């Protein structure tokens, strides 16, 4: 039997000597040019990291190519970031410009550092997930084509802006706390295949799976019934019972959320909140989605103060002004009606007209 439980490669064997030597001893960093970080240690040692965009879904060819680049300019050392960019770790400062030139020549996008729009944290989509309501990779690519200048630093923004895409409400990623997020949602009540359900459905688990209590056992059919008035199309029941289907190309699509953040810098973490309840799937380029994202970024960039993340900006001006400035309609969908809804109701006369 093959060995098990030996764990991942020890990162200590994969870091360049300069990191080994200066581990825990970095003093400060600067951003000498967009996409490049210069870290200086207390000993004076200098490490440059050059960040390039990745589609995240990559081929062996890509893996080999970045390996070759790392070998040529970085002694073979590279890493990925928590947002799936690639970072080339340059210990030898003389290799920095040649590396950049090489990357430019190969059309790599250098950027994503500091005040910029970095890579999109996204999920499997139609490429691999059974629950996908949309294709996360397609939307990501479409958005970032529009955002490329924001990534490379050609266009400046008041603060970091993080975009995330999730293909269903499971939100594999950090959609619930992103400056802008796109989330696949259903708009139809799931359909129960009674015959199949009577055979394979664990009725009590299925009933329990519904957050709103919309599901009742149906003793007649030995299946379950869904109360359409209570159902909020979350799809959770379909995870528990394979006889329940919610996919619906006509009514599936995406919603757009804004103002979340994770960092504790200045303000604590914030949830993303509903901006646009629904946009139909329109592959391959989801133009309505990319337009909406671009618009949101532009209104924010044009109005926020220096250093104000999307959510901090909205926090200062108020949501009523956000809807005015973005010219987005405010609808019944924006009003929370889930478990803690009342905490979102405005209990003060302080608002703007």
């Amino acid at each position, binding site marked *: 039997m*093959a*060995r*098990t*439980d*030996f*764990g991942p*490669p020890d990162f200590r064997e*994969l870091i360049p000597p300069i*990191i080994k030597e200066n581990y*825990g001893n*970095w003093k400060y*960093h600067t951003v000498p040019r967009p996409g490049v970080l210069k870290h200086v240690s207390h000993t004076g040692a200098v490490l440059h990291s050059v960040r390039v965009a990745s589609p*995240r*879904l*990559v*081929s062996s060819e890509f893996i*080999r190519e*970045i390996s070759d680049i790392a*070998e040529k300019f970085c002694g*073979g050392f*590279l*890493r*990925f*970031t*928590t947002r799936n960019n690639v970072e080339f770790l340059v210990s030898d400062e003389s290799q920095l410009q040649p590396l950049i030139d090489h990357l430019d020549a190969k059309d790599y*996008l250098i950027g994503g550092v500091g005040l910029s729009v970095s890579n999109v944290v996204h999920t499997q*989509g*139609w*490429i*691999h*997930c*059974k629950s*996908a309501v949309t*294709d996360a990779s397609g939307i*990501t*690519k*479409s958005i*970032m*084509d529009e955002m*490329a200048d924001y990534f490379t630093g050609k266009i400046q923004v008041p603060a970091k802006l993080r975009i995330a895409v999730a293909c269903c409400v*499971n939100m*594999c*990623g*950090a959609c*619930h*706390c992103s400056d802008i997020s796109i989330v696949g949602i259903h708009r139809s009540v799931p359909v129960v295949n009674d015959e199949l359900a009577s055979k394979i459905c664990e009725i009590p688990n299925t009933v329990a799976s519904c*957050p709103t209590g919309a599901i009742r056992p149906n003793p007649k059919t030995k299946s379950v019934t869904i109360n359409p008035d209570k159902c909020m199309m*979350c799809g*959770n029941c*379909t995870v528990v019972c394979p006889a329940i289907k919610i996919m619906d190309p006509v009514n599936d699509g995406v919603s757009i959320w804004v103002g979340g953040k*994770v*960092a*504790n*810098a*200045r*303000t604590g*973490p914030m949830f993303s909140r509903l901006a646009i309840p629904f946009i139909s799937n329109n592959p*391959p380029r989801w133009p309505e989605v990319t337009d909406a994202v671009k618009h949101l970024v532009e209104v924010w960039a044009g109005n926020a103060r*220096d*250093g104000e993340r999307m959510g901090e900006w909205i926090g200062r001006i108020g949501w009523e002004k956000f809807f005015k400035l973005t010219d987005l309609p405010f609808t019944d969908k924006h009003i929370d009606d889930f478990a803690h809804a009342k905490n979102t109701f405005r209990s003060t006369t302080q608002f703007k007209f």
Partner: protein
Amino acid sequence: MDEKKTPLLEGLEAGAWPSFVTEIKKAAKTNPGAAALLQMLEKSYEEKRGHWKHGGIVGVKGYGGGVVGRYCDIPEEFPDVKEFHTIRVNQPAGFFYTADKLREFADVWDKYGSGLYNMHGSTGDAILLGTTTENLQPCVDELSEIGFDLGGSGGAMRTLSSCVGQARCEKACIDSTGIMHDLTMYYQNEMHRPSWPYKFKIKISACANDCCAASARSDLAVIGTWRDTLKIDNAAVREYIANGFNIEKLIRKCPTEALEWDQEKQELNVCGEECTRCMHCINVMPKAISIGSERGATLLVGGKAPVVKGAMIGWVLVPFIKMEAPYTEFKDLVDKIIDWWADHAKNRERISELIERMGLANFLAAVGLKPLPQMVNAPRSNPYISWSAEEVGKNG
């Protein structure tokens, strides 16, 4: 291979941003699975719906998870993605690689799989995207030969993740990558043999900037911090100012009014007691302001995505804990948390949902932590306080 047209997807090859379609095409040149994926994806783009089936458990010897089984729902049409399972390979801490290591990795995957990857999955794994049931075992066997083990899936400890931390960041209060590696080794059994009510995730960010989004996406978030006072190098402050830095703006943005600029002495001072270590001043003046000396971490519990009771951002469980190898205090606490959770949780109930259902105070008592004001934004506003019979007198 029989090259069918994929006009919709081709539309995604243009543009400045690197294209995943181009990547799939690269793999498709030699890999029938990748080629079929492209075709099937084109169909999804046409029909606006996915083509993967629910269900289907697959695995490899000695492991209860680490592999996500996936079957296409129109296998007749796309036999090459009939089975298209992913393998979750536990990434090295900090996502560090060498060119050699990556090439070895690609060699194995080219042999057994689609030649496609997610670098990386949202949890952190290096995801090998698509292979057959048959190829799973040999692939995993060969991965183990080059030193790559599986990550987590199912009701288990999930693959951990951390920010780059002390490896490359001046703000790191703890050794996030070292901690991640140590804990990953420690929880190998819990990660590889699912036996819990649902997933449990740990993520480690070495400071409150939280560069691995731990507080939003992990049941237990470890966030580096310090207990004394941040340090100010006033010579460096003056240098910043000489270069046009707006010190007034910095002071206004400090959420606690802990900073004060002494115009006369040209000195920036901080009141350590007021500072909530939000990182802001350190972020904008990294050369002049730096983290304190008495370092450790804040633990937050309960971060997660919306399903089922709504999304949560982890809340403060332990304001300060020293994080020094072998992390015994930390591991003991995690053990207690998991024990209580495994004892009480319903199927698919995350720790935060259980705490919400059973009460935070009950949870604290169960894991032996004292209630602290740091755990809440504010005390309760409703008068519905419960008292146990032991706490009160006998009704006279």
